[in-house]
Each structure stands twice: as structure tokens, then as C-alpha cells.
């Protein structure tokens, strides 16, 4: 494999604090960034049977993810086409129809308008219901994850994810049985601007040994605390990823996965995916704009006798305003792995990476402390957020030959710069 050079990246890179503090920015984000992206909605396993539905948000739009009677998954604007009332008020349920509580208009779970009380009598015999179905988003799936967009012009989901798919498949494609979200979704709100979580998970290797120092000192970082090598990778559409592995390993091994599955993993993945994913200590990244993932082998420190299980946490952060974010988390596992393995992975997620646990709690604390100062007049005008770390990485040879712009700076802000360049470009600002 040929050494790769860091792409020249010479200008100072600042983002004005106003981007984290102004209501007008948030409203513009909804029009630009969120309107023209594939947004994560959930996992197929949340709606396994015809009629199953969950309610979600796309930006600030309320939507229903429903499996219709004939099988496909639909993502529908959760708003009656008569006067706009929220149709489906529950988080989760099963129904063949959604009926508005105001005037009784009734929609099938594929969005078709089925019933209008006294429709023929009051609206006339030529009343055309066909144009009054629920507004449907385009839906795409990737290894069980469901995405949607209301943008009819945007490229396909496959093209949107593009070469990021190579890396996502390393985590989502290890089993021929597909993936599962066995514990459903977790939802909570927190103070802080959504972009802080996005840029952190896109590739902030710098904060780990400080923000999460307690985790290192208490032995919860596992192999990440040892001799490791890492990369940051950037992709079209603003996605980015940071990956790290135990250095100097040759024979494929997959920490956190049952040894009797290792052969299957090597058969499921391509040779280069195996090379990339073997001996992984952590993979995390961002699907632009607001989906992130964290994959890590179990680091220990929990209950005795539990299987060593790798954890893949998928996160979604929806901006409820410039200062408040709604977060949803899923544990995503190979569908056919043993129950005990999934349970162990779940505990790792909630106890290490859940909102109340070691790592995310300290991250979210930093984000809300930024909120506390970002609105200040001086802070807003004279102290921008700076992302200049690691502009001059030496050429290096990655341990795998993978797609995307692979940079050998494990501790850098190259991915954050990538994220904000795409963000600012979408916002019509000079990036």
C-alpha cells in the first residue's frame, strides 16, 4: 500500500460561536442541512409486523415509521392533510389506520387517505382523495437501518453513504442473518447544540485522554489504552470516521466477537474490510448530519461470567432548538448472536456509553458548558471555536487499503474541519 499524504489544509479554521447560539441559524439548518440529507429514522426490527409503527422526528418534523399491511416500511409526515393535526400521538403501536382526532380523516398505514366523514355529502362526488394522502418521505435501508428524506432531488441512500458503506459494513455486516436492535430505542433530551455531538463523534480523538480520563484511570478503555494506531477518514457528503486498532497485529482476530464466529466474519467481509476491522479497539463516526455510531469491544469492569461482547451504539441527535437536543440511541447487534452476548453488549452500552454512564455524561457536560458561554457578546464575536489541530500529519501507510480520504492522524481535528466545511457550505457560508 502506498503512503498517503494529508491533503493540504493551510487556512486557520474557525467556526463563529454564533453558529452554536443563534436561533436564526437553527431555523436555517432545518431548511438547508436537514432538508437535503438522508436522516436516520430507526431500525427495521422496531416495526417487525404489518401495522407496527413508531413515531420519530426528521429535524423538527414529526413523522411515523410504519410497516404497511403489504410489508414495506413507510415514513410519513405525522400531520393530517386536512388541518394539520398530529395524527399519531403514541411512541409505538400497531394499527392499520391512523385517524385524526379533529374531524376524523383516516389514513391507511401506507399514507393513503381512506376515510373522510361525510366526504361525498359535504365535499361533493368529485372530491379527489388521492392527492390528500400523508406526505411520504423517500425511504432507504442499509443493513437494517432505516433512513428517509423529503428531498426528491437528493441522490439515492446508497450513493449518499458511498464509500462510508465499506466501513459501516465492517460492523453491520458481520453476520449473514443481518442486524437487530434487540432493546429498541432510548430517548432523552439534553442541553447543548446538536453540532457539538456531531463534531465530537466525527473524530475527536483529542478529548479522550482528558474528558474521559476517569475511564482510562479506572481501566475502562481496554485496548484503547495500549499500543494503538489509528486513522481519520473523510467521505463525500460530509461523513467522517475515526478508527483505531491494536498496533502490529497480523493474524485476523475480532475482539468482542465469539471466536466461533470469526471465520464467518472473514467470509462475510472483504479481505480489505477484514484487514481494517481486525483488532479494532474503537470505531466511531458521523453520517452527516446527525447520525453517529460508536463501536468498541467490551473493556471489562462489569459483572463476572458475562461473555465478552462488542458494542455498536447508533445515535441520532435532533435539534429541538439551538440549545436543546433530543437524542435517540440504539444497540445494534448481529441478528442471530446468542441472547447472552446481546445482553452483555447492552450492559456495555448503558453502563459505559449510555447517557448516564462514563463517557457520554462527561461529553454532554462539556457541550452544555459551551452552551452556557456561547451566547455571550464577547464570546460570540471574538472567540470562535477553533479546529486547527493536526494540519501537518506526516505521510503514513495505513494498515488497510480502504476508500475515502484516509489520514494517519488519530488525534486531529481533520474530521471536524471536514464536517464543518460541509455544514457551512450547506448553510451558504464561506467554508
Amino acid at each position: 500500500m502506498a503512503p498517503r499524504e494529508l491533503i493540504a489544509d493551510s487556512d486557520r479554521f474557525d467556526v463563529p460561536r454564533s453558529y452554536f447560539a443563534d436561533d436564526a441559524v437553527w431555523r436555517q439548518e432545518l431548511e438547508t442541512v436537514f432538508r437535503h440529507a438522508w436522516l436516520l429514522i430507526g431500525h427495521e426490527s422496531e416495526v417487525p409486523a404489518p401495522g407496527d409503527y413508531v413515531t420519530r422526528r426528521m429535524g423538527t418534523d414529526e413523522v411515523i415509521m410504519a410497516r404497511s399491511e403489504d410489508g414495506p416500511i413507510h415514513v410519513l409526515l405525522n400531520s393530517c392533510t386536512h388541518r394539520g393535526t398530529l395524527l399519531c400521538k403514541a411512541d409505538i403501536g400497531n394499527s392499520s389506520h391512523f385517524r385524526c382526532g379533529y374531524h376524523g380523516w383516516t389514513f391507511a398505514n401506507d399514507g393513503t387517505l381512506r376515510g373522510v366523514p361525510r366526504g361525498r355529502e359535504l365535499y361533493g362526488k368529485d372530491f379527489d382523495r388521492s392527492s390528500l394522502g400523508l406526505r411520504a418521505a423517500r425511504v432507504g435501508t442499509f443493513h437494517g437501518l432505516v433512513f428517509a428524506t423529503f428531498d426528491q432531488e437528493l441522490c439515492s441512500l446508497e450513493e449518499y453513504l458511498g464509500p462510508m458503506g465499506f466501513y459501516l459494513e465492517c460492523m453491520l455486516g458481520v453476520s449473514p442473518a443481518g442486524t437487530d436492535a434487540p432493546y429498541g430505542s432510548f430517548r432523552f433530551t439534553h442541553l447543548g447544540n446538536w453540532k457539538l455531538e456531531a463534531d465530537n463523534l466525527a473524530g475527536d480523538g483529542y478529548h479522550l485522554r482528558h474528558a474521559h480520563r476517569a475511564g482510562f484511570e479506572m481501566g475502562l478503555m481496554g485496548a484503547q489504552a495500549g499500543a494503538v494506531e489509528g486513522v481519520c477518514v473523510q467521505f463525500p457528503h460530509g461523513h467522517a470516521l475515526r478508527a483505531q486498532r491494536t498496533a502490529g497485529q497480523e493474524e485476523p482476530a475480532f475482539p468482542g466477537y465469539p471466536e466461533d464466529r470469526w471465520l464467518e466474519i472473514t467470509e462475510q467481509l472483504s479481505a480489505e474490510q477484514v484487514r481494517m476491522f481486525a483488532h479494532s479497539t474503537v470505531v466511531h463516526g458521523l453520517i452527516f448530519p446527525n447520525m453517529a455510531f460508536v463501536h468498541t469491544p467490551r473493556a471489562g469492569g462489569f459483572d463476572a461470567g458475562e461473555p465478552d461482547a462488542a458494542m455498536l451504539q447508533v445515535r441520532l441527535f435532533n435539534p429541538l432548538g439551538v440549545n436543546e437536543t433530543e437524542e435517540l440511541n440504539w444497540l445494534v447487534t448481529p441478528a442471530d448472536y446468542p441472547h447472552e452476548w446481546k445482553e452483555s453488549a447492552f450492559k456495555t452500552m448503558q453502563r459505559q456509553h449510555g447517557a448516564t454512564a462514563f463517557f457520554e455524561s462527561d461529553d454532554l457536560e462539556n457541550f452544555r458548558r459551551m452552551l452556557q458561554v456561547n451566547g455571550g457578546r464577547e464570546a460570540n464575536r471574538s472567540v470562535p471555536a477553533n479546529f486547527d489541530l493536526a494540519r501537518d500529519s506526516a505521510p503514513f501507510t495505513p494498515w488497510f487499503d480502504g476508500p475515502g480520504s484516509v489520514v494517519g492522524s488519530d488525534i486531529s481535528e481533520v474530521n471536524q474541519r471536514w464536517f464543518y466545511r460541509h455544514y457551512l457550505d450547506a448553510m451558504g457560508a464561506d467554508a
Partner: protein
Amino acid sequence: MSDLAAAATAFLHHETHLLNSERYDEWLALLADDFDYRMPQPVLRDDPALPRHSERSLLAWESVASLKLRFERILTDFAWADRPPAFHRRHLTAIRVAPIDDPAQVAVSADEIVFRSRTPEGSTVTSALREDVVDLSGDRPRLRRRTVLIDTDRPDLAQIALLY
């Protein structure tokens, strides 16, 4: 009130006081070795007859080992989320004690109001139902199980980060 109920009620008042006082080592000493702490995800469902908490999604699932780590972290100099510490207090009411199949143990449920306050999060008041199992078989009571059902469908982080 029976002696059993009185003992269980006094035990609950004591362990809650220890949590309020952040005397975590003493609180851990009140737990059975197989203590199991769960906070199911609240769920809005249309049908009022259906449960309002998920059967499979847990916002928190702790054991003695994980709680020890959690408290150990708070004592490090790098527990950023807990510096400065928040004000917090648990208020118990309507403690109910009921027998279960094992005569050495009792089910204890209590309604609970938990107050938490700190800048910049502000103040939260969370209502919850605690469902406990207390083991009275040894020389002193031990808490074996606690399930916390919070009465809010969109909890914020400050509400779920607390132990109830």
C-alpha cells in the same frame, strides 16, 4: 404496622438518606450481592390498558459492580459531569410493604419525588414509582432489587442520570 413492615420502612428511609447524603460506600453496603437496578424506558401507547414503560428497553441497568465503578468515578478529579455536584434530594411517600413467595423477603413500593438542581441545567422535579425487594433474612436488611418507573415520557438527561 407489622414488625416486618416497620423494619422494611425504616430500612428504606435509611438507605434513601444515605443516597441523599452521598454516603455511597455505606449505601453499597446495604445491597445484596446480586442487587439489580433497572429503569425501564417510559413509552406512550394509545391504549390506557397497556403498560407505560417498556418491557425490553432500560434507560439504566446496574449491578453492585457497575455501581461501585459509578461511585468510584465520582470520586476522581475528572468526573466533569459531577463537578460541581448538583443539589439533589429524594422524597419518599406512601411506602407499602407486601409479602412475596419467599417469606424472608418483602416487596416494598414507594412513591418518590426527586429534586435536582444545578446551573445551567436548572431544576428538575421527577415523580417516580420505586418497586423494591428487600431481603430480611440476615442480620440486617439488604436491598435486592429496585425498579424505577419514572412518570415522564420525555425525560431529560438530568432526570435519568440520578439514582432513584
